């Protein structure tokens, strides 16, 4: 599995740390259910999934990677900062 970092180009999977599904963090005062959903619950699809990967051994960027969990095919890569994933829900 190789991921094309928007800044560094195509790199080996070993350069990246996997965070999991790309979810937007609830606001600080959000209720328990919102946090439960964010921390624990997962759609867990067998197919395309938006994920957060961290280019730990490259440019240190957080990436939003759309990847097919059934085939490992990388469908799209975008800087997380440009994907609207920062901040709170």
């Amino acid at each position: 599995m190789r991921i094309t970092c928007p800044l560094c180009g195509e790199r080996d999977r070993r350069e990246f740390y996997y965070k999991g599904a790309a979810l937007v963090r609830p606001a600080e005062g959000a209720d328990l259910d919102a946090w439960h959903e964010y921390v624990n619950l997962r759609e867990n699809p067998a197919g395309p999934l938006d994920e957060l990967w961290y280019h730990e051994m490259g440019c240190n960027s957080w990436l939003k990677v759309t990847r097919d969990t059934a085939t490992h095919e990388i469908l799209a890569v975008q800087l997380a900062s440009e994907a609207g994933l920062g901040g709170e829900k």
Partner: protein
Amino acid sequence: MRFSGWRVLREGLTGNKGWRPHWRDPEPKSEYDVVIIGGGGHGLATAYYLAKEHGITNVAVLEKGYLGGGNVGRNTTIVRANYYLPGNSEFYSHSLRLWEGMEQDLNYNAMMSQRGIINLFHNDGQRDAAVRRGNSIVNQGDDAEILSREQVRELAPFLNFENNRFPIMGGLMQRRAGTARHDAVAWGFARGADMRGVDLIQNCEVTGIDVENGKVVGVQTARGPIRAKKVALAAAGRSGQVAAMAGLTLPIESHVLQAFVSEGLKPIVDHVITFAEGHLYISQSDKGGLVFGSYLDFYSSYAARGNLPMAEHTMESFVAMVPAVSKARLLRSWGGIMDMTPDGSPIIDHSPIDGLYLNCGWCYGGFKATPGSGSVYAHLIATDRPHGAATRFKLDRFRSGVGLMDEEGAGAQHNLH
């Protein structure tokens, strides 16, 4: 059909013409008391114990492929009860006791081999943790002993005792642990359930779960609708998709865990051995293949195959600990779909929907749990109360944070176990 040495002899002398299929291939009925979704180890064991312990025989096991084609056929066959935390500890103890009587109970040869497991430790901290865990295992009523470096050397002289970075200081041994023939476990439970009247229905994918007024009433399948008073999930890595049919979202990510087998070699590894470096675990099958694996690949996957970096890491660990295997060739590898919970422990509980039961989140530990899981799940389904050995596998522990069972102390978060 009863298996015995006499029967094997008689069949051998008469051309093996007397053997019959081990279970029926029934058409699904329109209604059952209990429908179990998933014909793997846990689903089949659940059906068996429902029939045997609770007298509930109007049961169907629905399997989308063939019986035992999922994780029960895709593991490293290790059986053990060396867990530390209350909740896990008594459950795996219960399960190991069932393993010990299973072949006689099922009249089926599952090649249960109590060859013992040795968890090596390489530094003072790991030794202290092993002693503490060993004491906990003894307290739960099972066996554990600390081996010195020389005792380990006597049992496993092929290990690398000259490794300066990861010196072998000793090991935690559980002699009652071992391995079992994984396929035979599924077949034995299947046959036992079928003999008691359970319908095992293969090629019957569940496509929907029917819920009316908050109560489950049946399932939609590739072979038509089936009504059911109770529906029990046992779908392992596919639990998320099955639960979604009932509108539930589970605290589960499905990840891939790889396993490997070398070419057949003469007997060398007499036990199951784990290394505290790189999470490696090895054993040798009766065919001579070295069976081994290590970490998850650490990304969500349903591909049932992994990537090369983890394969490389696993081989490196193996060669570091057993230099002799560098000359062995790898025969094959595969991946299993692991239903990972945030704390690394399973869920056996009611669901928020009346009559719908959950058995999932086995992470990478499902095989050793097979009889225990079947027995306690059957108890829950039959009585609507948790079995005494499985009172802490609650679904709501993730929401409340109370009763989390994080065996590794890594934190109750996805992707940490």
